[in-house]
């Protein structure tokens, strides 16, 4: 562990001395004590993979985190005690969920840790592997089975097998197994060996766990035995017996569950709320195999928390909705940023419950009903939140961040969250003065002048405007007549030219791009001539022929210009495109030469 801070005692034995604060909260009278912040804890996890429990029955709660490692390897089950990592166990696959529960009535009543991962649930007791549960295999498509059986007896060749499997895939209700799907993707030469390798084994279809929760078996006590509730990729909900690990109940959902929440007792009555990937919430009850209620959200659910009997769901469109158990909408809160995670704050000593919402704006908002009670600013985006007893402190908030950090905060014992008034009063901005642009004395003077001389001003303006228009028109006509524009207006020779100067001097390269813009009339017998100040510039060839111009093509014509002066002056070079035997140019371009930055040629 990198940063072990003096806050250890703050976590273990509560003394009201302010522990070393790592992150300065903006509010001076913050309700939270900063107990620990380790930005390099290297934790990649979600709220569903964190749990607090008294692992050794010694009155000191530990934090169990299912760490996804790099997302590919190095997955671990980590246990934190105080501010340090106590143990870590390697996991074989990505942990989907971590829950703690009591499996049996045996003394001592040590809680077990269940880690869901792929199609398995690993159960740990005293941090020792205790049991592994595997999800039952799914039904295999009978046709597929048949086809593989035929392949096994070498009745069909791989190509036929492929065709038949494709046929099954397109029509079947039961999807194909992994083997068949993989087979369909193979190249022809690989098929044979693949079939030979696999054909002797039975086909099976496995699914994976997507979320996990616990459900009290028959007593509501804190330390009652609980069943595991799991949601699977095959859109099923399973309830497992805690002792025998048999499937007690199996229920179907219309979509794949992503989050779940469970309340009640298995033997009495229970409700399971499932947030699914199709953007709906489904509420399941004890006696029905199908969802009892459905709540269609307008966007994807990002978090699901139950406060007493109401369901609070955070959506990806930056909203927080609350629904009753029967799916009736209660309220909506619009959030300033998108949600990253959600959790329940349950302060048992005061009987206070609120929803914690981690936001992408590096904040955790605390909502009770639709009222925002508290904002915790965090140094990084929070990816998981977990509130409960940690160490010997009942009200601890544990958060992990996107960068892998671990933040532990303690709720001050004196802290009380007040219900603020719903209406926030006039917004602050109402007090801000409007920034009306100021006008100068000059402006006022000019205004007065205009008042007195409006008529004269108007007349002068109008007269000048006419003059301007006249001049513009004259100049235009002149340009047209003298062909001094870079676009030729002559019907027979529609040409267009632009010039580019390259170099820093004294030698410049002049590129003239000439284009014949007529549709089908090539231009021939054209000449180019340059006009320039001979004291300043010299050109090898200032008068030359240009080739036939095919319509539509761009002809770059390059020449070189030497600048003779080293005085840092520049001048205009005029380019004329002429027709053989005519002195009036077809078009003219004026090139403003840049100042020569190099030394003049000797």
């Amino acid at each position: 562990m990198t940063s072990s801070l003096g806050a250890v005692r703050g976590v273990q034995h509560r003394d009201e001395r302010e522990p070393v604060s790592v992150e300065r909260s903006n509010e001076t009278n913050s309700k939270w004590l900063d107990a620990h912040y380790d930005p390099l804890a290297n934790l990649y996890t979600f709220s569903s993979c964190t749990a607090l429990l008294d692992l050794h029955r010694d009155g000191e709660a530990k934090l169990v985190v299912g760490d996804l490692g790099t997302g590919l390897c190095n997955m671990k089950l980590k246990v934190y005690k105080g501010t340090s990592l106590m143990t870590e166990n390697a996991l074989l696959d990505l942990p989907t969920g971590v829950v703690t529960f009591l499996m049996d009535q045996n003394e001592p009543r040590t809680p077990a840790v269940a880690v869901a991962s792929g199609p398995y649930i690993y159960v740990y007791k005293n941090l020792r592997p205790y049991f592994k549960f595997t999800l039952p295999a799914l039904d295999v498509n009978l046709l597929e089975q048949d086809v593989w059986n035929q392949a096994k007896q070498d009745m069909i060749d791989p190509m036929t097998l492929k065709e038949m499997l494709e046929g099954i895939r397109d029509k079947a209700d039961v999807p194909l197994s992994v083997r068949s799907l993989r087979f369909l993707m193979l190249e022809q030469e690989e098929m044979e060996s693949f079939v030979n390798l696999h054909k002797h084994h039975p086909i099976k279809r496995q699914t994976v766990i997507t979320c996990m929760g616990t459900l009290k078996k028959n007593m509501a006590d804190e330390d009652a035995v609980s069943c595991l509730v799991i949601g699977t990729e095959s859109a099923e909900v399973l309830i497992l017996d805690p002792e025998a690990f048999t499937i007690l109940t199996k229920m179907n959902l219309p979509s794949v569950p992503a989050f779940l929440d469970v309340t009640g007792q298995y033997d009495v009555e229970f409700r399971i709320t499932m947030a699914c990937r199709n953007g709906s919430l489904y509420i399941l009850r004890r006696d029905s195999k199908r969802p009892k209620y459905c709540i269609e959200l307008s966007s994807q659910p990002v978090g699901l928390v139950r406060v007493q009997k109401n369901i609070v769901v955070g959506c990806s469109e930056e909203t927080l909705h609350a629904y009753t158990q029967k799916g009736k909408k209660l309220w909506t809160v619009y959030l300033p940023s998108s949600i990253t995670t959600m959790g329940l704050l349950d302060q048992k000593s005061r009987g206070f419950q609120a929803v914690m919402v981690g936001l992408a704006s590096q904040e955790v908002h605390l909502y009770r009903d639709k009222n925002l009670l508290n904002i915790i600013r965090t140094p990084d985006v929070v990816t998981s939140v977990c509130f409960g007893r940690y160490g010997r402190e009942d009200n601890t908030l544990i958060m992990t961040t996107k960068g892998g950090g671990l933040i532990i905060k303690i709720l001050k014992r004196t802290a009380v969250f007040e219900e603020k008034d719903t209406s926030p009063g006039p917004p602050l901005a109402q007090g801000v003065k409007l920034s009306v642009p100021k006008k100068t004395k000059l402006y006022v003077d000019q205004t007065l002048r205009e008042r007195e001389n409006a008529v004269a001003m108007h007349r002068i303006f109008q007269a000048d405007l006419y003059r301007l228009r006249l001049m513009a028109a004259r100049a235009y006509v002149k340009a047209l007549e003298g062909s001094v524009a870079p676009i030729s207006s002559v019907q027979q020779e529609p040409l267009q030219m632009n010039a580019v100067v390259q170099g820093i001097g004294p030698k410049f390269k002049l590129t003239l791009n000439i284009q014949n813009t007529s549709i089908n009339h090539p231009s021939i017998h054209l000449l180019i001539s340059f006009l320039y100040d001979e004291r300043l510039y010299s050109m090898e060839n200032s008068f030359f022929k240009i080739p036939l111009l095919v319509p539509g093509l761009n002809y770059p014509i390059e020449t070189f210009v030497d600048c003779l002066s080293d005085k840092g002056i520049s001048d205009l070079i005029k380019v004329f495109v002429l027709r053989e035997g005519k002195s009036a140019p077809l078009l003219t371009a004026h090139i403003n030469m840049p100042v020569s930055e190099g030394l003049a040629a000797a």
Partner: protein
Amino acid sequence: MAKEFRCCHWPNTVFDRAQQIPTVPGASEPRKSRLKKAPELPILERRNWLIHLHYIRKDYETCKAVIKEQLHETKGMCEYAVYVQALIFRLEGKIQESLELFQTCAILSPQSVDNLKQVARSLFLLGKHKAAVEVYNEAARLNQKDWEICHNLGVCYLYLKEFGKAKEQLNNALQLNRHDLTFMMLGKIHLLEGDIEGAIEVYKRAVESSPENTELLTTLGLLYLQLGVFQKAFEHLGNALTYDSSNYKAILAAGSMMQTHGDFDVALTKYRVAACTMPESPPLWNNISMCFFGKKKYVAAISCLKRANYLAPFDWKILYNLGLVHLTMQQYASAFHFLSAAINLQPKMGDLYMLLAVALTNLEDPENAKRSYEQAVIFDQCNPLVNLNFAILMYNQGDKKEALCQYQEMERKVNKLKESTAEFDPEMVDMGQKIGAALQVGESLVWTKSSKDSKIKQRPPTPCIQQQPLGSNQALGQAMSSAAGYGKIMHLPTGGVGLSQFSKPPSLPLEPELGPDETIANSSAIHDHERRKE
């Protein structure tokens, strides 16, 4: 610590240490088949949950990395990974690529409704509405009761201009689930058909189902405003402001209503909030400016209008107001420029020509003033002021015949307006009576009713109008502008947006200050329209 784990034996199965692939040999496979042990194939969907979690958290970078890994591992066969990749592509604007990926998904699982929906959505975003409708219909065959399909079908039909079908589908969607978005779309169709009442009904239902949605409340408020039901409009806009006190649209609409009631200070306080959230909104600065104008702070008004004009140089309403304020300030040369700019942008509005004519009159160019009035008379339908001003100009030019003609036209318009119990501006009444007397048409009875009305109500002292010469241009200019300062009209023009309300003859108040207030309402309405378009 990690080692210890590997060595231990799980009760019902054994881990193979050599196997580093996360998947474990199945429990059903005992050790005996050692000679020909097939490598276990990883489950295709094993990381779907992780992809989904990152996707919904909008952590697209990580999500893409996981997808890449997953696709690499499954050789592109993991349908969900492809699906989410396509969704991310679409969010990144690569619609064509995303469509191709969705089509890949459709090959992997042809029966998936979700997939079809996404294909249709991509087609929709590419503007291929007809194709989208076909795919949605196919999806609807697989899943009858899907709100999303019905809603999106409705939206597609909306863009195909098949409003009947669109409404049918949207109503179907509403029966399945009452989403705010569906209500908004349905309301929009009613508005496109010009059926404001229908739209109001839709929005009323929407507000019932989600009473705290400020967007719905604001829109409903604006619709009531258009219909001229001010009480209800204000109620809904007020509600919207209660839930979101910095809702820009609601502030602008509510502010413009306060302005029409002359509550300039209250309106200004509201605008302050909007100015913080939207400091670069042209209509906002236009309205702020008109508040200052109402409070006779002309310099501030000009400053604000110039800012609005800077932000929206092609908005003729701002130019109109600039022209009006400059007329008030007797800066006729400037007024001329703003008004002619406004006319260039909006060449079919009588009031603009009239103001231009007033400016020209003051610039001692009666020739052009007359031509401008002639244009104004052509375009204007119901504003008697145009004819009155024209009559005054003609009278002052000595053309009594034309003046009389215009005077009679004005009388006709006034009579028409009296039916809709409009109040007339006392100054205009006064001026009308004077010119009537000068033209020797006698004390016409045109004004009687209205002048009674105007006597009853308390009104601020009018600036004195010069007696001689009658209705001098100077006086008229003053009349135009000072009247604008009263800001006491109760009626807002209610037509839809832009031009339409001018051709409609609803109860337009017969008052010169029509100008600024009208402009206020218009700009907010226009703005609203623009927002709705988004």
